[in-house]
């Protein structure tokens, strides 16, 4: 059985190799089926969206920080959304908030992060020629592209894009009378999200299949790098939860266009009573958050996986508690499905349900805490090299702690009564899921750029970028805790109507200035990224002296990744600074039989087994040669 699959694989790879010479521009860069190029396509599209999403946030931060400012100079861009008095239109403000959320959560941190690194790294790190289905993988990107185009168009229509918050709760999102964005803008939002879900599912099925079936010889699940574990579990979460979002969206489409009453009931709006009865807006919230909460882990787990890899490599130490890390990720995966209603403590659902979800929610803090302690212990007594990727990974751990701890307040339903939908929540999720995942994305780009483009990014620009962004993010989101404790509600266009919020204009101004500086700092990254792509220093084979498989490929791997045989894996991916070893890292492809000086007692026993396997393998190779 095993011999047969090895043989098949080789023939297949051979075919690929012949094809490669005929690649033209379109099959190489556009309708490509090479996982590495698809990963890069996701990355560049993600970067594009990150700029848009970031820019939208700057627009509404201008309104919040400088409510008196004359925004006439934005008229060439925003047209009628600037009122005659030179202020931002309140409806458009809500549209900005909505689109910022949608873009960042789905298009940047789901597609841009998972799409990029799952595609790029899974085959490279497990030792596969490509994804299980290159064609589906290509479809996955192009569905995402189509979704992006539709969402982008919705930004420019006359009634404005969707404006009901990124959660698009009905009835607001179902009724055009309630807000103009719930007209065509919302229709486009729903269509775009449908394609997005299709893209995620196509990608997810591929990631799962590839990890299960196409691991190279010796790459057992207990030898997978934590990145792959993270991508694998992320795909599982996505596969189980995105269809539920689709169901929620579908019912919303019915309510909007076909007169059903899934979410609508007893509504009097625009001077008339609507015929809908019997529906429940809370039903939508349940369905939405059944995806919405796992979604948090869909964006966070890949970032944590990347961080594990980067921290271990640059600490020159094995990741502490490899098994504990996997178990805690499994725990998070399972628990992520049974905590969703903590977003709904004061939605009017039965308070008893609130109690249950409070218990479940606070349980999920335990595996998260374990991960943090493991990261800290990995750093302890390491030999730390501060590459930009390492800096961003440490930054991620900091955000994960800061944002995670505030989750303990919000997961407690009694405390959540006051904090729900205030800036405390905004601070919480921007740190723990927004910024942390974003830092994971950046860490990944800095770390695997040499593998992607065969060149190095400039480290010093990376340092400047890191420190500006790291300090900037804290300056933006830390003050929001104070504003939140003071009770400032989210999605408010202005604070002057209420006495209890008629303060902190200085702090809001500070936050806005910090946001602008942080946003500007991202252009350092953009320059570094695109400049290094063409003019960066040439990369060496294994610039970070890492143990994982992707660094055994040529500097610019072709389609099929390894020119000859796929290497066999003999050990786990974290043999850094092993006592007795010559170098401070031993790649996964080095057999134990070659490192008698550093083998641990139980590994010494594996040597014998290893030699048997190698013998068997060479017989297969000989047999293959004879066939040709």
């Amino acid at each position, binding site marked *: 059985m095993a011999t047969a699959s090895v043989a098949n694989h080789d023939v297949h790879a051979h075919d690929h190799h012949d094809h490669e010479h005929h690649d033209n521009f379109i099959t190489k860069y556009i309708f490509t089926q090479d996982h590495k190029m698809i990963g890069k396509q996701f990355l560049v599209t993600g970067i594009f969206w990150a700029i848009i999403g970031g820019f939208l946030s700057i627009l509404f931060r201008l309104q919040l920080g400088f409510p008196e400012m004359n925004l006439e100079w934005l008229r060439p861009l925003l047209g009628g959304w600037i009122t005659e008095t030179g202020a931002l239109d309140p409806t458009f403000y809500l549209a900005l908030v909505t689109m910022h959320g949608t873009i960042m959560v789905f298009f940047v941190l789901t597609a841009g992060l998972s799409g990029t690194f799952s595609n790029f790294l899974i085959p490279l790190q497990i030792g596969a020629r490509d994804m299980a289905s290159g064609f589906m993988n290509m479809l996955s990107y192009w569905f995402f592209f189509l979704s992006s185009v539709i969402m982008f168009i919705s930004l420019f229509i006359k009634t404005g894009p969707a404006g009901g918050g990124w959660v698009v709760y009905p009835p607001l999102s179902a009724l055009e009378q309630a807000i103009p964005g719930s007209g065509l803008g919302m229709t486009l939002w729903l269509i775009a999200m449908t394609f997005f879900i299709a893209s995620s599912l196509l990608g997810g099925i591929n990631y799962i299949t590839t990890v299960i079936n196409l691991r190279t010889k010796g790459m057992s699940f207990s030898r997978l790098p934590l990145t792959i574990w993270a991508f694998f579990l992320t795909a599982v979460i996505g596969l189980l939860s995105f269809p539920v979002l689709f169901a929620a969206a579908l019912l919303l489409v019915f309510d909007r266009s076909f007169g059903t009453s899934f979410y609508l009931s007893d509504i009097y709006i625009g001077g008339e009573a609507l015929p809908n009865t019997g529906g429940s807006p809370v039903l939508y919230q349940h369905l939405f958050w059944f995806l919405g909460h796992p979604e948090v882990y869909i964006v966070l787990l890949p970032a944590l996986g990347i961080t594990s890899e980067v921290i271990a490599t640059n600490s020159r130490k094995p990741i502490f508690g490899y098994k504990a890390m996997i178990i805690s990720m499994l725990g998070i995966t399972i628990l992520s499905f049974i905590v969703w209603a903590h977003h709904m403590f*004061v939605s009017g659902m039965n308070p008893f349900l609130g109690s249950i979800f409070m218990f479940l929610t606070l349980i999920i803090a335990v595996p998260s805490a374990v991960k943090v302690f493991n990261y800290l212990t990995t750093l302890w007594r390491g030999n730390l090299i501060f590459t930009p990727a390492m800096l961003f990974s440490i930054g991620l751990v900091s955000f994960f702690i800061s944002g995670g701890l505030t989750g303990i307040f919000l997961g407690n339903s009694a405390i959540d009564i006051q904090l729900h939908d205030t800036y405390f929540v905004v601070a919480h999720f921007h740190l723990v899921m927004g910024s942390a995942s974003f830092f994971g994305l950046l860490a990944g780009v800095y770390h695997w750029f040499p593998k992607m483009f065969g060149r190095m990014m400039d480290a010093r620009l990376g340092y400047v970028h890191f420190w500006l962004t790291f300090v900037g993010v804290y300056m933006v989101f830390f003050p929001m805790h104070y504003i939140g404790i003071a009770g400032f509600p989210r999605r408010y266009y202005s604070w002057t109507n209420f006495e209890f919020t008629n303060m902190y204009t200085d702090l809001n101004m500070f936050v806005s200035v910090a946001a602008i500086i942080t946003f500007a700092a991202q252009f350092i990254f953009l320059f570094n990224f695109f400049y290094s792509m063409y003019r960066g220093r040439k990369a060496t084979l294994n610039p970070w002296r890492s143990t994982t498989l992707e660094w055994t490929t040529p500097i610019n791997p072709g389609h099929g990744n390894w020119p000859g045989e796929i290497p066999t894996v003999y050990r786990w991916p974290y043999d850094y600074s092993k006592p007795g070893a010559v170098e401070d890292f031993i790649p996964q492809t080095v057999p134990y039989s070659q490192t008698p000086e550093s083998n641990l007692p139980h590994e010494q026993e594996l040597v014998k087994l290893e030699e048997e396997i190698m013998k068997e393998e060479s017989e297969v190779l000989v047999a293959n040669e004879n066939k040709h």
Partner: protein
Amino acid sequence: MYGFLIGVGVLLLLSIIWMVYRIQTLVSVVKGSDKKVASGSNKINAILFVLFLVGTGILMFWYSIKEFDNYQLPVASEHGVITDQLFWVTMAVTGVVFLITHILLFVFPYKYQYKENRKASFYPDNNKLEVIWTAVPGVVLAGLVLTGWMAWSDITAPAPENAHVVEIMGYQFAWDVRYPGKDNVLGDYDYRLITASNSHGVDFTDKNAIDDFPSPKVVIPKGEPVLFKIRARDVLHSVFAPHMRLKMDAVPGMPTRFWFVPTKTTEEMRAELNNPEFEYEIACTEICGRGHFSMKKVIEVVEPEAYQKWLAEQKSFIQQNPSLAENLPAEMKELADIQLSESKK
């Protein structure tokens, strides 16, 4: 002209940054520092982590102490005292964890920064440690959850029988308030009955509705339980009374509720804050459209005697607008007429 000058300035700045960048790249190539495992920047980054820790730590403590009275809203309800206490206990627990983990996270980079002649310790796992740091957070969180759960159960328990009922209805973009009148029972309503003169859609064929009255603000007695019956007419809204530590969504088609006991009258709070203008406010915390940020209602907390006096002064819907009773069945019309004649006395 200004635009042109700014353009030139930006161009100049960019080219200077470009030159500096090129020069430092070339210098590092000449020095060969790009070939080293860790260049001099390693030390700088390590130091910056410590500076960041100290700098932001000082900033955080300074601001948190200086601003305490500003962001800590005074509390004016019985359960609010408990939830505030839970908040600060959680703050203390998480604060300790926050400080310890961050000190470790930023001191380790300094202490264990790369040295060529040192080798990192090979320390792949320790099951005892894993068990400890799974169990300890587990126990601490269990404690927090249990206290939170007890508070939550009390807060969300059914309101006492004698609670004063107030109905708050959200719509784009304001709140309407209805009182049940002397019987303390709100009359039925139906959204299809809503008209310009009957914004609540009150069903006046229900005899409980006869004495219901509207109010421009929420008036409630101090020290007595108050039950907010909350509903929405068009889209989701959320009643948020920050000083009462009260929040509950208003859902079209699904009435919700929240009961509490106010502990300070508006006058007392004015004296406490030394602010004669102070009012308790209700704001909306569920995005509901263009005017989301302006849905304000004032709550006035008064002494129980003043409350009874105020109640007696209020005029019911029918007294304010007799035409509402016009199409009622004979039996109900009689009740309505009695009311109308009472108000004329």
